């Protein structure tokens, strides 16, 4: 048995073989007006290929700092981050190179307002030189249709609802065939009804694409509903406090929210999250 045969054996199950992130003893210190801030300290976390890993923690705990380090927007001051065994950033190279293998969906959305939804979705492959404008538009149309985004292709992002914008942005990210999707509280600004629609839409997209998802949120219910695992982070400096295995099988539908198992997982974690939220609140009071 040689290597190609081995990958062939994995194919029927559609297991993702790429997109494993190893965060190893990562430190991040920055200097702000109030002095030295340790945003992340000795943080280690292994995210498996094709896993939905939810990162939960109070606002300002340093979750986004971690995401920025993976995406290559900011440097780290210690430790290393690997993607599929390849070092993204580490001791010799504090800042990772941003690239289409790790695409970010931003907290408040970052669709280009001057491009139509279709042009936004087609953006990545065109600038990467992988496709012509026409090819990219064709693929984008198909992917948008799969995500239920029909009839809004030629609207500007400003013309559609915020839930739809978010979906366009996720599809835009997937157009790059990323190994990892980095989602930074993507549904934080949506009302809870829209949110629940978005959750199922995201899962549908995930079941089709099976990318690794690194998903930051401060909504515990969202975290348990979506994630294979939920990493609850301490408040600044940020590191995993508790990692929860969500043993509810995928594909999940919204009715699992009322299941006893879901409730008991919530109970198991809610105090840990609350503890950190109180600490973050008190720290915030001190800084004021």
């Amino acid at each position, binding site marked *: 048995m040689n290597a190609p045969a081995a990958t062939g054996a994995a194919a029927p199950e559609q297991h993702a073989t790429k997109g494993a992130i190893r965060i190893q003893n990562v430190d991040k210190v920055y200097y702000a007006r109030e002095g030295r801030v340790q945003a992340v300290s000795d943080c280690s976390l292994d995210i498996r290929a094709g896993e939905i890993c939810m990162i939960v923690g109070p606002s300002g705990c340093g979750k986004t700092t971690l995401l920025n380090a993976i995406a290559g927007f900011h440097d780290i001051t210690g430790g290393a981050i690997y993607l599929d065994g390849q070092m993204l950033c580490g001791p010799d190279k504090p800042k990772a190179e941003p690239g289409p293998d790790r695409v*970010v969906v931003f907290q408040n959305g970052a669709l*280009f307002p001057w491009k139509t939804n279709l042009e936004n979705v087609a953006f990545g492959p065109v600038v990467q030189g992988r496709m012509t404008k026409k090819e990219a538009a064709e693929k984008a149309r198909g992917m948008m249709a799969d995500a239920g985004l029909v009839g809004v292709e030629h609207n500007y992002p400003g013309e559609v609802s915020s839930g739809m914008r978010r979906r366009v942005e996720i599809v835009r990210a997937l157009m790059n065939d990323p190994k990892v999707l980095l989602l930074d509280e993507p549904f934080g600004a949506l009302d809870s009804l829209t949110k629940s629609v978005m959750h199922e839409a995201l899962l549908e997209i995930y079941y089709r694409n099976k990318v690794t998802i690194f998903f930051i949120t401060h909504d515990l219910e969202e975290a348990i509903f979506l994630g294979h695992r939920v990493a609850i982070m301490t408040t600044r400096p940020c590191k995993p406090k508790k990692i929860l295995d969500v043993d509810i099988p995928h594909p999940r539908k919204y009715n699992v929210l009322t299941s006893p198992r879901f409730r008991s997982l919530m109970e198991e974690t809610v105090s840990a999250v609350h503890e950190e939220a109180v600490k973050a609140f008190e720290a915030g009071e001190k800084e004021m």
Partner: protein
Amino acid sequence: MSATIASAAQPRPRPRQSIFRNHIVRAVISIATFIVLWEVGSRLKLPWVGDVPPPTVVLKALVPLLTDQGYWYSWYQSSRRVFTGFLAAMLIGIPFGLAMATSRIFRDITFPVFEILRPIPPLAWVPAAIIFWPTQELSIGFVIFLGAIFTIMLNVIGGARSIDLRFFQAARSMGSSNWDIFRRIVLPGVLPSIIVGCEVGIGITWNVVVAAEMISGGGGAIQSSAGGGLGFFIWSSYIGGSYPLIVVGMISIGIAGYISSSIIRRLGLLVTPWVRVR
């Protein structure tokens, strides 16, 4: 589930613009009220307005001018000067502003000089402009150019700076080169500000047209007093003591400025269709 998504994805119907007529009506009411108040104030010899000839008298002065070649030639002269001066300001101001916004070094070198020159009023440039440039037309064009360029540049710089950082990060993470970022993010991102800069800038060019055309001394006149441009028309009416004609000249410049700004605004909406929907 997928059915809900599909129905949610239908484009929302956009209401057609029925306000168009209303806004014309309001504009007419606004101008008519202004004229009536002016007429009444002038006839009643109220303070300040009492010294201004009433609109009926101005209208009487205007009617013969409407068939006067010299008057229209003044319009043509001023418009031509404003257009060329403004075009030059755009051609130089937009690239300069973009360079200042994107290159730290270039900005550090040029910004101090820019900031010293900027507060100098165009009127103060008139003598220098006469000395600098070989022809009268170039001197006039230069003063008009100065009126617009600083506003255009400031808007370009400010517009480029206000582009959301996340757009750059998103573009970067999707694999954009520096050139892609400039072409696909900076340029469209700054375009609305360029248009605002031009809209304000072309208004200022009409503000300075009087000062600039004092240089002309009636050059290129077809008839004795008119023909040096609308700015010169006002100046020569003042010298000749014809108050109604001064007002005619003032209103002409006002209308010319209004038309120019609305043309820029319309063109602006054509090139930035996404701004309308925000």
